[in-house]
C-alpha cells in the first residue's frame, strides 16, 4: 500500500517529464499519456482511500507513512497519507483529469507538464508533514500556477501572473524565515515542531505562518491578489487551480494552523475567521462580473478554515469537515469555471449551461444534499455549543455569500456551451452528489422523521391534509406545460414532497434539510416563469436564504431537537424567519415578485400551500412559549402588530395593483397577516382563529391562483387591461373565483366571515381593541381589491383579442371545484373543525378560563360576544339574495350590451388603448389620496438599506486596490500588527 500511495504522488511528475519531451514531437500521444497518467492516479488514490477505509468518513485521521528521506522518524523526511487526505487526492486527480481536455485543447500540449506537475505539487503539499517538504511543494506549486496563468487567456492574465508572482516571492521569504527560526529553536523540521517553539520565536513563527496561510488561501484581509488572480486567468485554468492547488492549500492550512503556538487561544482564529467572513463577503456583494464573485467566495472558505480550526479539535472530525467543506467547494468551483464559454475572459461568459450552473451554485453555497451543507451544519453546531454569539457574524457572512453567488446564477443566463464543455461540469455535479450521499449517510443518525407529536394531533392532521391536498391540487395544472417545460413540474413536486419533510421532521437537522429543499425547489420552480422569471427567482432565493439561515440559527440554538425550538432565542429567530418567509413587514418584496413571475400553478402552490409550511414552523416554535409568562406575551404581541399592519398595507397595495397575479400576491401577504395576528395573541381562541383562517386561506387562495392561471393560460394577457368580460367565455372559472372572492371578503355566508368572526372574538376576548380596529380597516379595504379582481378579469367588456377564448383546461378546473367544495363545507359546517380544534387548543394552553362562555352547540358557535350559526346565516343570505335577484329580474331596467369600442371621444385625440380600458388605474382616486405612501414604501427602504450595505462593501474593497505592491504591503502590515498584538500575550 505504501508503494501504491508513493506511486500515486510521483506518477504525475514522471508524466510531466515525459510529456514535456513528447509535446512537440507527438502531441496526440502526449495528451493520451497525460490522460492515462491521471486516470491511473485516480484509480490508485481511490484504492488507497478504500484501503484506509475513508469512504464511510469515519476515522479519517488514520494514516500510512511514506518515507522519502534517509533515516527513521523523527529525523527522516516523510509524507503521511491520512484517510482524509486520500479523499481529497481523489478530488484533485478527478479535477485534473476532467479539466485536461479543455486545458490542452487544440495544440496546447505544452501545457500538459504544467497540469501534471500541479497535481504532484498539490499531493505533496497535502501529504507533507515537515516544513521543508512543504516548502519544496509550495514552490513547485507557485511556479506552475504562475506559468499556467501566463500561458493562455486575455491580456489580463499578465496582471494575474505578476500579482501571483509577487505574493509567491514574499511568501517564500517569510516561509524560509520560519524554517530557520523553527530549526534554530527546536532542531527539528517536522510541522509539529511549530508548536514546540517558545517565547519570541513562537510569536514570530505564529504570525508569519498565519500570514502565509491566510495569504495563500486568500483569507481577508490578504485576499486581494487571489480575487484578481481568479478574475484574470483563463476560466479552465481557474477550474484546475481551484480544484487542485487551492484545495491542497486549504487542507495544508488544516494541518498547520492547529499546530501553531497561537492556536492555544482559539478566539484569535475565531475572530479572524468571523470578522474576515463578514468583511470579505460584504465586498463580494458589489461584484458584477462572473469570475470575481467566485474569487470572493474562495475567501469565504478561507475564513471558514480559520473557524474550523478554532472550533473543531477532534482530528477525525476536523479532517471530515475539511474534506467535505473544501472538497465540496472545490468541485463546485471547478464545475462553474468549466462552464465558462470557450472564449470567455473574466467579464463575459457567453455560453454557459444554466441548468448545471444552478446545481453547482447550490452546491457552493451549501444547500442540501451537497457536501458543503453537511460540513457547515456540523461546524456551526460546534460553534453553537462553544460560543453561540459567534453564530451571528458567521451566519451573516454566509448569507452575504449566498446572495452574490445566487445573483451570479440569476444574471448570467445563456444558451448551452459547446457539447463537450458540459461533460466535466456534469461529472462534477455527480461527484458532488456522491459526496453529499457519503456525508448524508454519515449524518443519518442525526436525522429522523416520524409522526409529528409536538403539536396537538387534530391540528397536525389538518396541516398534513393541507400539504397533501395542496400538492394534488396543483400538480395536474403543472403537468399542462409538461411538454414545453418539464422542469417546473419536477421542482414543484420536489417542493411538495419536502413540505411533508417539514411536517414529519422530528429532529432539528431533518427539519432544516426539508426547509431548505422546499425553499430552493420553489425558487427553481419560480425561475421557470416566463416573465422575468430568473430575476424574481433571485429575489425569492435571497430572501429564502436569509430566512433559511435564521431557521438554521434557531435549529442550532435549540440543540438539535424540535422541542428546543421553543427556547426563547430560537423562537425569536423562527419568528423573524417566518415574518420574512410570509412576506410580512416589508418582506413582500420577494413574494410579490415571485408570485407575479412564477408559472400559474407554482404561484398557487407557493401562496396556497407552501406558506402553510411556514405557519406550521412558527407554531412549532411558539408552542414552546406556551405557559411561559411575560416573554411569549411580548413576542406574540409584536407578531400580531406586524401582522395587522401588513394586513392593512397589503390590502391597500393589492387594490392598486395593475395585474391580477400581483393583486393576488399582495392579497396573500395581507391575508397571512391575519394568521400572524391570531397566533400572536397566544390564546386558545386566537390560535383557533389562526388555524381556521389558515385552512380557509389554503382553499380560496389556491382556487384564485388556479383560476387566474387558467385565464392567463388561455388569454396570455398579464394586465387587467388585457382582460375583462371573460364571464361568458370562462363561466366555471368565474363561478369558482366568485365563490372564493366572496369567501375571503369575509361576508356571510361563506367561510371568510367565520374566520373573521373568530378572530375578532379572539381579539376582543384578549382585550386587544387597537389591534381589532386596524384589522377591521384592513377587512374593509379587502372589499376594494375583491371587486377589482372580479371586475377586471370577468366583468366589463370583452377585449377583441379574447373573442375566441375557451374555458380553462380541466386540469385546472377540477381541482378548483374540489377546493370550492371544501370552502362550502367550512362555510356551513365550521363546527366540524371547531368542535375538535377548540378543546385541543384549550388543553394546549391549559387555560380554559379564557374560553368562558365559548361553546359549540350543534350548528352554532356561542361566543362571549355573540353567537354564530353558519347554517342559519347561510340560508338567510341565500333567501335574501334570491328575493332581491327576482325583484331585479322582474322590475329592473334591461341591461344594454356595449362593445369595447363603444367609446365617444368628443373630438379629443384618443389616448393609448390601454388607458381607455375601464380597468386602467381603477382606484386612481384612492391612489391620489395615498400619495404619501410610496415614500414610506418597502422598496425605498430596502433600496436605502442596500445602498448602506454597498457602502460597507466599498470600505472593504479599498483593500482590493488592484496594485500588486499594495497586496505585499498588506501582508507585511498584517505581520507587524499581528506581532504587536501577540507580543506580550501569555
Amino acid at each position, binding site marked *: 500500500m505504501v508503494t501504491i500511495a508513493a506511486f500515486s504522488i510521483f506518477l504525475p511528475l514522471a508524466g510531466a517529464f515525459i510529456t514535456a519531451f513528447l509535446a512537440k514531437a507527438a502531441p496526440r500521444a502526449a495528451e493520451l499519456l497525460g490522460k492515462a497518467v491521471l486516470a491511473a492516479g485516480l484509480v490508485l488514490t481511490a484504492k488507497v482511500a478504500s484501503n484506509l477505509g475513508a469512504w464511510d468518513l469515519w476515522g479519517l485521521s488514520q494514516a500510512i507513512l511514506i518515507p522519502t528521506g534517509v533515516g527513521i522518524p523523527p529525523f527522516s523526511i516523510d509524507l503521511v497519507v491520512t484517510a482524509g487526505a486520500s479523499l481529497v487526492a481523489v478530488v484533485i486527480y478527478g479535477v485534473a483529469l476532467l479539466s485536461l481536455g479543455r486545458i490542452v485543447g487544440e495544440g496546447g500540449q505544452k501545457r500538459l507538464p504544467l497540469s501534471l506537475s500541479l497535481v504532484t505539487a498539490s499531493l505533496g503539499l497535502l501529504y507533507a508533514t515537515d516544513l*521543508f517538504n512543504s*516548502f*519544496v511543494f509550495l*514552490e513547485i506549486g*507557485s*511556479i506552475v500556477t*504562475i*506559468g499556467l496563468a*501566463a500561458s493562455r487567456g486575455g*491580456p*489580463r492574465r*499578465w*496582471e*494575474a*501572473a*505578476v*500579482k501571483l*508572482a*509577487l505574493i*509567491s*516571492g*514574499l511568501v*517564500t*521569504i517569510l516561509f*524560509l*524565515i520560519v*524554517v*530557520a*527560526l523553527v*530549526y*534554530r529553536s527546536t532542531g527539528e*523540521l517536522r510541522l509539529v515542531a511549530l508548536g514546540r517553539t517558545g517565547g519570541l520565536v513562537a510569536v514570530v513563527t505564529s504570525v508569519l505562518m498565519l500570514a502565509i496561510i491566510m495569504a495563500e488561501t486568500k483569507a481577508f484581509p490578504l485576499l486581494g491578489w487571489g480575487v*484578481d488572480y481568479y*478574475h*484574470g486567468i483563463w476560466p479552465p485554468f481557474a477550474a484546475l487551480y481551484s480544484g487542485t492547488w487551492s484545495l491542497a492549500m486549504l487542507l495544508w492550512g488544516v494541518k498547520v494552523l492547529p499546530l501553531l503556538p497561537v492556536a492555544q487561544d482559539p478566539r484569535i482564529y475565531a475572530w479572524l475567521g468571523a470578522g474576515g467572513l463578514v468583511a470579505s463577503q460584504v*465586498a463580494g456583494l*458589489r461584484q458584477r462580473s462572473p469570475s470575481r464573485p467566485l474569487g470572493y467566495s474562495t475567501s469565504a472558505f478561507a475564513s471558514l478554515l480559520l473557524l474550523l480550526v478554532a472550533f473543531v479539535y477532534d482530528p477525525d472530525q476536523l479532517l471530515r469537515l475539511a474534506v467535505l467543506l473544501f472538497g465540496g467547494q472545490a468541485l463546485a468551483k471547478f464545475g462553474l469555471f468549466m462552464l465558462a464559454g470557450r472564449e470567455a475572459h*473574466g467579464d463575459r461568459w457567453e455560453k454557459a449551461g444554466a441548468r448545471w450552473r444552478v446545481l453547482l451554485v447550490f452546491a457552493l453555497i451549501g444547500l442540501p444534499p451537497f457536501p458543503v451543507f453537511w460540513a457547515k451544519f456540523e461546524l456551526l453546531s460546534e460553534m453553537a455549543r462553544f460560543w453561540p454569539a459567534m453564530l451571528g457574524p458567521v451566519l451573516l457572512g454566509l448569507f452575504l455569500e449566498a446572495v452574490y453567488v445566487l445573483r451570479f446564477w440569476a444574471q448570467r443566463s445563456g444558451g448551452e456551451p459547446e457539447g463537450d464543455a458540459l461533460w466535466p461540469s456534469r461529472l462534477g455535479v455527480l461527484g458532488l452528489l456522491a459526496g453529499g450521499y457519503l456525508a448524508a449517510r454519515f449524518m443519518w443518525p442525526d436525522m429522523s422523521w416520524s409522526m409529528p407529536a409536538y403539536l396537538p394531533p387534530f391540528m397536525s392532521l389538518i396541516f398534513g391534509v393541507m400539504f397533501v391536498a395542496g400538492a394534488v391540487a396543483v400538480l395536474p395544472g403543472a403537468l399542462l406545460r409538461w411538454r414545453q417545460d418539464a422542469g417546473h413540474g419536477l421542482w414543484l413536486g420536489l417542493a411538495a414532497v419536502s413540505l411533508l419533510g417539514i411536517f414529519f421532521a422530528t429532529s432539528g437537522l431533518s427539519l432544516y434539510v426539508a426547509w431548505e429543499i422546499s425553499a430552493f425547489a420553489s425558487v427553481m420552480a419560480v425561475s421557470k416563469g416566463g416573465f422575468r422569471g430568473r430575476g424574481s427567482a433571485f429575489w425569492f432565493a435571497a430572501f429564502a436564504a436569509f430566512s433559511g439561515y435564521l431557521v438554521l440559527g434557531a435549529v442550532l440554538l435549540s440543540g438539535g431537537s424540535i422541542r428546543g425550538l421553543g427556547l426563547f432565542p430560537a423562537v425569536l429567530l423562527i419568528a423573524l424567519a417566518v415574518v420574512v418567509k410570509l412576506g410580512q413587514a416589508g418582506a413582500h418584496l420577494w413574494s410579490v415578485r415571485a408570485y407575479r413571475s412564477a408559472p400559474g400553478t407554482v404561484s398557487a402552490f407557493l401562496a396556497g400551500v407552501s406558506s402553510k409550511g411556514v405557519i406550521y414552523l412558527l407554531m412549532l416554535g411558539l408552542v414552546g412559549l406556551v405557559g411561559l409568562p411575560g416573554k411569549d406575551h411580548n413576542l406574540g404581541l409584536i407578531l400580531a402588530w406586524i401582522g395587522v399592519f401588513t394586513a392593512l398595507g397589503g390590502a391597500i397595495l393589492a387594490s392598486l395593483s395593475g395585474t391580477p397575479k400581483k393583486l393576488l400576491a399582495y392579497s396573500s401577504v395581507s391575508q397571512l397577516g391575519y394568521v400572524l395576528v391570531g397566533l400572536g395573541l397566544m390564546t386558545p381562541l386566537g390560535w383557533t382563529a389562526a388555524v381556521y383562517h389558515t385552512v380557509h386561506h389554503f382553499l380560496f387562495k389556491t382556487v384564485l391562483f388556479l383560476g387566474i392561471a387558467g385565464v392567463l393560460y388561455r388569454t396570455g394577457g398579464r394586465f387587467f387591461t388585457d382582460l375583462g368580460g371573460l364571464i361568458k367565455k370562462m363561466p366555471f372559472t368565474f363561478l369558482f373565483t366568485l365563490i372564493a372572492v366572496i369567501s375571503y371578503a369575509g361576508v356571510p355566508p361563506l367561510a371568510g366571515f367565520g374566520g373573521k368572526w373568530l378572530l375578532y372574538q379572539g381579539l376582543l376576548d384578549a382585550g386587544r381593541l387597537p389591534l381589532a380596529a386596524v384589522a377591521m380597516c384592513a377587512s374593509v379595504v379587502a372589499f376594494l381589491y375583491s371587486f377589482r379582481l372580479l371586475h377586471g378579469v370577468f366583468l366589463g367588456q370583452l377585449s377583441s383579442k379574447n373573442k375566441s377564448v375557451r374555458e380553462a383546461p380541466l386540469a385546472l378546473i377540477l381541482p378548483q371545484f374540489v377546493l370550492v367544495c371544501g370552502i362550502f363545507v367550512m362555510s356551513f359546517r365550521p363546527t366540524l373543525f371547531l368542535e375538535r380544534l377548540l378543546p385541543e387548543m384549550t388543553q394546549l394552553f391549559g387555560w380554559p378560563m379564557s374560553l368562558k362562555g365559548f361553546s359549540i352547540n350543534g350548528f352554532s358557535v356561542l361566543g362571549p360576544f355573540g353567537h354564530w350559526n353558519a347554517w342559519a346565516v347561510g340560508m338567510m343570505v341565500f333567501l335574501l339574495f334570491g328575493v332581491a335577484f327576482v325583484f331585479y329580474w322582474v322590475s329592473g331596467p334591461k341591461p344594454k350590451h356595449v362593445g369595447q369600442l363603444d367609446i365617444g371621444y368628443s373630438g379629443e385625440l384618443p389616448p393609448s388603448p390601454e388607458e381607455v380600458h375601464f380597468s386602467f388605474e381603477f382606484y386612481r382616486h384612492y391612489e391620489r389620496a395615498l400619495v404619501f405612501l410610496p415614500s414610506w414604501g418597502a422598496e425605498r427602504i430596502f433600496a436605502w438599506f442596500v445602498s448602506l450595505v454597498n457602502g460597507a462593501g466599498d470600505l472593504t*474593497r479599498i483593500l*482590493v*486596490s*488592484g*496594485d*500588486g*505592491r499594495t497586496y*505585499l*504591503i498588506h501582508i*507585511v502590515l498584517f505581520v507587524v500588527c499581528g506581532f504587536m498584538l501577540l507580543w506580550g500575550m501569555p
Partner: protein
Amino acid sequence: MSLSLVLLLSSMGLLLTGLVGIMAKKHLLRIALAFTLASTGVNILLVWTGYLAGRKAPIIDASIEEIATVAVVDPVPQALVLTSIVIGVAVSALLVVVAVLTSRELGTADVRRMRNLKW
C-alpha cells in the same frame, strides 16, 4: 565580532533591503532584483541556524569520519540552503520572464499601471 553575528546582521540587512525594495520599487525587474536580495538574506539566515563556531564544512571523508559529530557544522541547514538556492534561481528566472513578457504585452513594466483587475 563573531562570525555568527556577522551572518545574522548581514542576513537581516539583505532581508530588510530586499523587503523594502519589493514594496517601494515600481519597475518589475527592480522588484525581481529585490526578491533576489531578500532570498539571499534568508539563505544566509538558514546558514546561520546551523553554524557552530570553530567547526568545518559538513563534508565527511575518511579524515574526520570518526569525529564527524563534533567536527562539522549541522548539515541539515546546508542541505536546505542548497535546495533553497536552486528553487530561488528557478523563481527568479520565472519572475524575470514574466516581467519581460508582461512589459512586452502590456507595454509597461510599471506595477502601478497594472491595475485593470481591481475591487
